């Protein structure tokens, strides 16, 4: 691509028509492709929605409150209440563990408690945690996490079975195992984004607080964290979105039982696991029902992600 030719007669010759065409064509092409990204998001929504129409006609909004998932022909009945419940509860357990640890780690990595070189390595290690494939977490969970949780669970069950959340004996896969693996997988997101928020708190605030005689942790808890609060909230929301959509690790650990139980040891199911388990063998109305379930999951995560992005945008403006 070299249209430039040194000619002495007319150093400022006007651009040729083909040059201009190439130029505007290039700009146009990039514009179309940029808009295509927004289009992809829209297409996913429309496409999944269209395929879900037969199930929507059949079940309507009752789909969300129905607990049966029965693909037997002639008696087909589908509802996603147990799966939505499983999605929300497993994500909640995951965040319950990941938020305090993640924010604590973010504070550690944003303060000068450790030398900078050590902190840089730690930040990188936390990033690596996010890079390990989900299916590998699943395999690890089956062979390492589930035995550990079963042991702890047996003790809890034999001593505290009167508490509803420990009311069933742990039999391997279950809600708690899925929640713990989600905690591990969302930890890097919470840590990374909270750390960014903590670091970008203006230095003056810290200096003023220390100057007034506050200790390090009085400064952190009463000045830095409140100032970075919206950033931390968006970190938690992005983590929630990730946890709700997480498929493989959860599918391998949650037990895939379509029922609601108050116990965290009981096997359960999530919308994403339902899709992963049934899609390849589904046909007819079941596919449409699965598409409907996918649409529910898509809207749940979309809602959470959009809210998180809006919070981030507001923070940037300030």
């Amino acid at each position, binding site marked *: 691509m070299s249209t430039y030719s040194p000619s002495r007669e007319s150093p400022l010759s006007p651009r040729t028509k083909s040059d201009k065409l190439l130029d505007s064509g290039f700009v146009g092409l990039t514009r179309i492709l*940029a808009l295509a990204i927004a289009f*992809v998001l829209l297409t996913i929504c429309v496409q999944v929605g269209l395929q879900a129409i037969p199930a929507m006609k059949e079940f309507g909004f009752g789909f969300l409150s129905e607990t049966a998932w029965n693909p037997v022909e002639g008696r087909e009945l589908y509802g996603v209440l147990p799966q939505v419940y499983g999605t929300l509860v497993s994500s909640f357990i995951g965040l319950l563990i990941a938020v305090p640890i993640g924010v*604590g780690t973010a504070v550690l990595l944003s303060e000068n408690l450790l030398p900078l070189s050590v902190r840089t390595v730690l930040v990188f290690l936390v990033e690596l945690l996010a*890079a390990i494939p989900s*299916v*590998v977490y699943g395999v690890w969970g089956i062979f390492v996490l589930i035995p550990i949780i079963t042991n702890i669970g047996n003790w809890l069950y034999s001593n505290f079975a009167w508490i509803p959340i420990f009311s069933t004996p742990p039999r391997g896969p279950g809600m708690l195992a899925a929640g713990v693996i989600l905690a591990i997988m969302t930890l890097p997101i919470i840590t990374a984004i909270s750390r960014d928020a903590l670091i970008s708190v203006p230095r003056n605030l810290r200096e003023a607080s220390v100057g007034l005689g506050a200790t390090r942790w009085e400064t952190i808890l009463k000045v830095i964290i409140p100032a970075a609060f919206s950033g931390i909230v968006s970190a938690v929301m992005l983590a929630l979105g990730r946890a709700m959509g997480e498929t493989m690790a959860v599918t391998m650990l949650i037990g895939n039982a379509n029922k609601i139980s108050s116990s965290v040891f009981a096997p359960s199911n999530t919308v994403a696991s339902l899709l992963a388990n049934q*899609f390849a063998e589904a046909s007819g109305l079941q596919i449409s029902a*699965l598409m409907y379930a996918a649409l529910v999951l898509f809207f749940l995560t979309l809602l959470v992600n959009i809210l998180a992005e809006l919070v981030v945008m507001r923070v940037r403006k300030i």
Partner: protein
Amino acid sequence: MNSSFTEDSGAVRRSLSRSKGSPRTLFNSTMNFVAFACGAIALLPLLAVLSYVLIQGIGSLRLSLFTELPPPPLVEGGGFRNAIFGTIIMVGIGALISVPIGVLAAIYLTEFSSGKIARGVRFCTNVLSGVPSIIAGVFAYGVLVSSKIIGYSPISGGFALSILMLPIIVRTTDEALQLVPNDLRQAAVGLGCTKFQTVMQVVLPAAIPSIVTGVTLSIARASGETAPLLFTALFSQFEFNGFFQPIASLAVLVYNFAISPYDNQQSLAWAASLILVMLVLVTSIIARWVTNQKSY
């Protein structure tokens, strides 16, 4: 006079120093300890997963993994050359779709667009990167498989992967282009370059190391993705069978074989996990190293 001064300064000093036993100091040290504990707990799973995969995987690593096909249950040996090939094919298709679109879209965002459009598209990119990977699979299934256009095939799988790779590529390219100093663009335009020439011969070459890093990271991520391939590419015990037939991949092999009751298949799953983890680790470390070598 003199003595009272020293007395004063002693009192001042005492009032400025924190007593070690005061509740405030104790709380401070406790919280320091809690922060260190959080950091340790956060790193624990990384070490646990890496060491376990390493220990289990190294025992199963052997040359035949790369040259043989998956064995039937209870037969010793075997490998997964078809799965390695399948992963390469599908990630290749994904990259072929997402890299040109992603890079050109990012060029529009930083070079040509107005603020409003750029904000909107960046917003969509961020939201797209939060779309669950299984939804990308459902989408690809709806577009290519159930509509009988292509069916279960590496093309459908690659298409699903491209949707997950696209936001990563747009975001990293966007960031890389924004880091190119404006002086370069002004110099190019001052010499009479067209927009096309400015971008292709000045801006893009300056940003290429970071763009390559982003593409590599997205490829590493995509190689480990399982959910979008489950019902777009399915799985196959056999050789690559053309672009319109189900195909094996490392990630789906890990999923299928890890939950199988047979020892030989589990050992293959560990070996495949190790390969996937190493791929991600090595690319992340290289990416970190490259982004630290700043060209400007």
